[in-house]
């Protein structure tokens, strides 16, 4: 019984980085901006989390710093795509590259070493043996769902991703909504990275979770609840691997592959084309015929 509880809790912890960033991805794409830079943003926020925690001797300040960093880096993506109307994927790739470089540079500046930070002793309290921040996912899902579907803001955000021209004529500020979607995804990346490994930053620690989050967004049909459930699927599959790795007759590397293969299988197997917001990834220019 104790083991089951541990498994459930551990799975939640392992799923949260994916889930939080997927939740952010939903907001960004619902507003019409594809954000493949979640990975790069998380890399930077994970670093500033550790720095903030050590410098201010509080993990909560570290969390705040991480969120702010996420907002700032995603702001670049927002400016480049919404204001300069660059292709979303190109910008996302550029930010990923920039993020990797920036995190290394900051690590070297803060800690003197390029590839890993000092150890951060200020951590979130543990609950049921795992990082308690992970449990925030539960209220986060509901808040995410509620804001998107039950508030004026959420309705307008969704309208912009669906038909920016119509939204514009109805008085919705398309630019503001798109910025908001992207910045929210940045902030959530900050939280996501705090549920990863808050004790130390190592280069490459995000290990593709930002991209799995994107797969979760698609699999979850751009819905907060769906995306988080999909993230849990990936996360628990990974937990299964970690827990049973040594006992399986399969070589560990194949088990390691599992979440990624699962993502491909899931995407390939989706029946019909799932429906992204109609203007997801397309730039909108007022008055452009």
């Amino acid at each position: 019984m104790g083991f089951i509880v541990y498994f459930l809790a551990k799975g939640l912890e392992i799923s949260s980085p994916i889930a939080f960033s997927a939740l952010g991805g939903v907001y960004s794409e619902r507003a019409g901006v594809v954000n493949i830079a979640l990975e790069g943003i998380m890399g930077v926020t994970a670093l500033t989390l550790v720095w903030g925690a050590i410098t201010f001797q509080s993990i909560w300040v570290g969390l705040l710093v991480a969120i702010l960093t996420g907002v700032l880096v995603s702001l670049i993506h927002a400016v480049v795509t919404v204001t300069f109307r660059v292709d979303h994927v190109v910008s996302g790739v550029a930010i990923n590259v920039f993020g990797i470089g920036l995190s290394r540079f900051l690590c070297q500046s803060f800690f003197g070493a390029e590839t890993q930070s000092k150890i951060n002793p200020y951590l979130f309290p543990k609950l049921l043996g795992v990082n308690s921040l992970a449990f925030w996912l539960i209220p986060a899902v509901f808040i995410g769902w509620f804001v998107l579907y039950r508030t004026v803001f959420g309705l307008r955000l969704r309208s912009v991703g669906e038909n920016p021209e119509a939204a514009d004529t109805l008085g919705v500020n398309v630019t503001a909504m798109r910025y908001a979607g992207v910045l929210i995804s940045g902030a959530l990346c900050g939280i996501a990275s705090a549920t990863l490994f808050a004790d130390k930053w190592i280069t490459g620690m995000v290990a593709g979770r930002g991209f799995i989050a994107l797969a979760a967004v698609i699999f979850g049909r751009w819905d907060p609840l769906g995306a988080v459930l999909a993230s849990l699927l990936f996360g628990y599959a990974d937990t299964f691997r970690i827990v049973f790795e040594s006992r399986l007759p399969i070589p560990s590397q194949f088990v390691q592959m599992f979440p990624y293969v699962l993502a491909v299988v899931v995407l390939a197997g989706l029946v019909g084309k799932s429906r992204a917001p109609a203007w997801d990834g397309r730039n909108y220019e007022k008055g452009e015929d």
Partner: protein
Amino acid sequence: MADTLLELREITKQFPGVIANDHVSFDLRAGEVHALVGENGAGKTTLMKILYGLYRPDSGTISVEGSAVSVRGPRDAISRGIGMVHQHFMLFPPFSVLENIVIGEESHHAGVLATGTQRARVQSIMQENGITVPVDARVEELAVGLQQRVEILKILFRGAKILIFDEPTAVLTPQESAELFRTFRALTSHGKGVIFITHKLDEVLAVADRITVIRQGKVVRTMDRAGVTKPMIAELMVGKPVLMEVERPAREAGATVLEVRDLKVRSPRGLAAVDGISFSVKAGEIYGIAGVEGNGQSELVHAIAEGVEIESGEILLDGSDTRKWSVRKRRENGITHIPEDRLKYGLLLPFSIATNLTLGRHDKPPFATRLQTVNQRAIRESARRIIRQFDIRTPSENTPANALSGGNQQKAVVARELAADPRLLVASQPTRGVDIGATEFIHRQIMKARTEGKAVLLVSADLDELLSLSDRIGVIFKGRIIREFTHAEAVREEVGLAMTGGKAGEERAG
């Protein structure tokens, strides 16, 4: 005399090369349905865009309920009570009717949507105006007629008193159209005013209180419904302008090149766009297809030129069934196509004119050698020849296509498709957006193709163009050819009437 809701006086709007609205005066009274009738390009859309704030008039005044206003944009228009139901709906398909109506004007408690209040507001608007739609249904699940009602409710929700409908029945079934006219009556009985833009003369006579006819940017006449007949309106719409007659060498049409039998094509929305159409085009003949846009012409053209979305029926080229042919095969067998949207389909804008002139033949000699290398010299020489021949104004053949004016871009597309020496040329709106000089030139080239024995299928919204060029005209209406005219028989008024679904010699007293 009922109150005047809206008055436009001496509205003038010019674009480079054309006067879209020429001292247009128009008024709308409370409680009336006022129909605005005219051909494509007559100026109706521009006028409405001015009213709705999308354009500014060069001169003239707009008054709403007696006070002069300046409409700065759609949001400004609606705040003054001017609402527009567009031909292409501005809806959010996956959202509910309720959401579609309230976005931008939501009821809320500190940011949280107050669904109950919203529902009550919408329901009261529906009751007030006698228009009902299931409030919680997703818009994409609704029939088109109901979707249109959502659009109407949107503007009523925002206090519209003047409702403009732009070709509202273009996408409706006959039953839905009847429903719409009942809605008009409901609206006007509540003191609202309806401006009804349409081509369909039946509808005008069925529902309008007053009729204003616009032609070439000017108001021809405004009249009361009483005593008006369809032929009267048609004649006012179409007038008797001086035709730009192209020289027509006498010609015996040859063998049948294209034969279309019982073709059915579905539109993206799933409606039957082409509904069992049959016609044929012979060598050395120009067959024109006349019709109001939206009667299946686009789908017909795409089916012949690219083979898309064919549900049933046959398209035979010199007797061979083309249904399974790829685009490449169609071109190899001599079908070329001047697309109706040259920017979307016809030109690779960043590439040079020379390269664009080879599209469709780029993989054949002389442009590509047997080793599959590109023969730049042949491309350039051919381009220079074509540019000279067609008088395409460009600094050089290496200029990128996006640097050319619209008229020269179109000339390039026409030149390319003709230079490929086709058996069948499918020309869709070949002179759309093209200045007079280029238009005359293109017409001469199409005539030349005819003289050389090619078969030409000409689809155009420009009736003058069709009348002047076609050996035969087929009028397309609701996806079928309902009447054919020979060149001699084709009289403007008759063809115009047929285009609106009317029959010859029909007289209907008011």
